[in-house]
């Protein structure tokens, strides 16, 4: 490290002394400026900061004491020396009173001068160090204050509720969300809050407060704030510890879990529904087997064959349902890898009609199709779109009357490719139409009693269409027929 060179200004009207001192100090590694009168001295020493200033007391224009005052007003840490040939005790006292480090009697010896300057420099370094420490501390305080405001701002902005209580159960910190979640108005810092919180929350807090030994564990509870799952919260309480490990208080985070709970409920409802739908056909098969295998019932071979055929039909239906469920689950979990290709809706619809040809002929159904020219291609997964159209056109066949009609049209409308499939089938009542896309919903009436189905087909159709940002619309008249319209955006994919 290069040695620091103190910067000195000499203000003296006596040229010999000025130049002599300058040379002496330069040889001692000082940076030295000089001024030949008080006015010049003030200008220079207030224009930039000097470490040291040697000021002649008696000058024709401005005296040394005045120069010193001016300098100290701007740079209070410049160490000033008053040099005087008329040294007296009074002058010395006067000079030091007014801020001089000391006075130097003229004429001075080099040693005398250098000793004084070194002492002055030492003082200046101490002062500067103290100043810098003070500044640093001030900066840190400011940072801390800023940090605290910032932290408060952050905590207040969290959607989750946060509050902290001390060992006495008094509120130490809380954010506005807490007041909202617990429907508490006018809570304040220092308030004993244990009594006014829901019992379940207080229980968790007390567990931690009453456990003085070290245990790094959070306690969680779910609280129903409004009945019927209208508003549910989760509270998670964690101990706040002193450095020695003893409990200082509890920090609690409160989260709105209403939506999550609703989804959870729907899920378990769905599971229960699936279980029921799987159980029914199995129960039917077991029922038939029990009858066939029961010697006391003496069922005829014809009856046995009938029961076995019907059992096979139920198991077939069960298999279809499991396949549908697997499809739905793959769609939900998005594990199914889509193979996006440019597809022609015409081709898919024509292929589907061909696939159903046998059944169509068997029922004597007539299919009329109308394809607009130059239908744009669509980026989609072939299996998914085939599934979509098979389910809809399959329904148009299944729920049609014998010798009925199916009309299919494919055209563009805005950014959509619109496929409309109308049948002359059994139609549906408005109340059934509303539930049509729900899982396992099947219309049950005299017409449908002999038609098998999983109740999942249209729910799958809806999911596929929506996954391509499309939609499905239904029009229907009971006993007259239904029309399904599929909208798929051709910019999709």
């Amino acid at each position, binding site marked *: 490290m290069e040695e620091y060179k103190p910067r000195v200004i000499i203000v003296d009207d006596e040229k010999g002394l000025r130049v002599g001192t300058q040379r002496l100090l330069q040889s001692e590694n000082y940076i030295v400026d000089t001024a030949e009168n008080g006015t010049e001295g003030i200008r220079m020493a207030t224009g930039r900061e000097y470490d040291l200033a040697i000021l002649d007391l008696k000058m024709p224009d401005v005296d040394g004491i005045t120069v010193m005052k001016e300098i100290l007003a701007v740079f209070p840490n410049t160490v000033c020396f008053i040099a005087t040939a008329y040294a007296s005790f009074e002058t010395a006292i006067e000079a030091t009173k007014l801020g001089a480090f000391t006075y130097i009697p003229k004429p001075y010896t080099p040693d005398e001068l250098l000793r004084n300057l070194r002492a002055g420099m030492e003082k200046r370094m101490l002062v500067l160090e103290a100043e810098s420490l003070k500044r640093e501390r001030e900066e840190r305080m400011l940072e801390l204050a800023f940090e605290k405001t910032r932290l408060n701002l952050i905590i207040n902005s969290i959607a989750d509720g946060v509050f902290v209580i001390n060992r006495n159960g008094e509120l130490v910190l809380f954010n506005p969300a807490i007041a909202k979640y617990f429907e508490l108005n006018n809570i304040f810092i220092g308030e004993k809050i244990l009594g006014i919180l829901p019992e379940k929350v207080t229980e968790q807090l007390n567990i931690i407060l009453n456990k003085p030994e070290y245990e790094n564990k959070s306690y969680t509870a779910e609280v129903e704030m409004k009945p019927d799952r209208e508003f549910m919260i989760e509270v998670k309480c964690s101990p706040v510890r002193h450095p020695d490990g003893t409990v200082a208080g509890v920090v609690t985070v409160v989260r709105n879990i209403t939506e999550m709970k609703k989804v959870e409920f729907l899920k378990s409802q769905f599971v229960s529904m699936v279980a029921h739908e799987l159980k029914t056909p199995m129960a039917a098969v077991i*029922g038939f087997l029990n009858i066939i295998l029961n010697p006391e019932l003496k069922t005829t071979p014809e009856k046995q064959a009938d029961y076995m055929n019907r059992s096979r039909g139920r198991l077939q239906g069960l298999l279809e349902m499991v396949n549908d469920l697997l499809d739905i689950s793959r769609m939900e979990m998005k594990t199914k890898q889509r193979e996006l290709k440019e597809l022609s809706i015409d081709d898919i619809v024509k292929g589907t009609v061909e696939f159903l040809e046998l059944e169509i002929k068997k029922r004597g159904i007539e299919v009329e199709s109308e394809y607009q020219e130059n239908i744009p291609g669509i980026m989609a997964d072939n299996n998914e779109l085939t599934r979509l159209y098979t389910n809809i056109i399959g329904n148009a066949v299944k729920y049609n009357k014998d010798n009925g009609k199916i009309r299919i049209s494919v055209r563009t409308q805005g950014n959509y490719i619109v496929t409309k499939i109308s049948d002359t089938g059994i139609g549906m009542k408005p109340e059934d139409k509303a539930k049509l896309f729900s899982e396992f919903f099947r219309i049950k009436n005299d017409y449908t009693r002999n038609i098998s189905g999983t109740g999942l087909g249209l729910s799958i159709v809806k999911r596929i269409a929506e996954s391509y940002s499309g939609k499905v619309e239904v029009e229907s008249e009971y006993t007259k027929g239904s029309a399904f319209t599929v909208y798929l955006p051709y910019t999709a994919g």
Partner: protein
Amino acid sequence: MTNIQNKPKKILLVDDDIDLLEQNKVLLESKGYAVVTAENVKDALDIFKKEKPDAAVLDLIMEEHDSGFVLAHKIKRDSYGKTIPVVLLTSATYITGMKFGVSTKEEQEWINCDAWFNKPINIDELSGKLEEFFDKQGI
């Protein structure tokens, strides 16, 4: 348990699942009952009025989820219906998403059915229960 009296007791059996309907019909007939069947609430009420059965065995969940309840309720409100035993068949797995169950006393009182069985039924238990009612009625 074979019916010892000459005229077999007539049971109204209602289920919208035609396979389960047939199975329970076969089983009840094997116990010596005469069985009349219906697949929906409307037919069931017609047959009930026409046939005046000695007991009704109803599936809980039909076209609409509460059809079995409604039917049981209607039969029990009828001046003849309230004199005969009404038995409900339930599927124990199907609990959620329904307005009613038969698990609480209030629900049982409201429905006013005489017994309920989980499906698939054990025919000996069902006919045993029916015979208990018939014995109590002294017919």
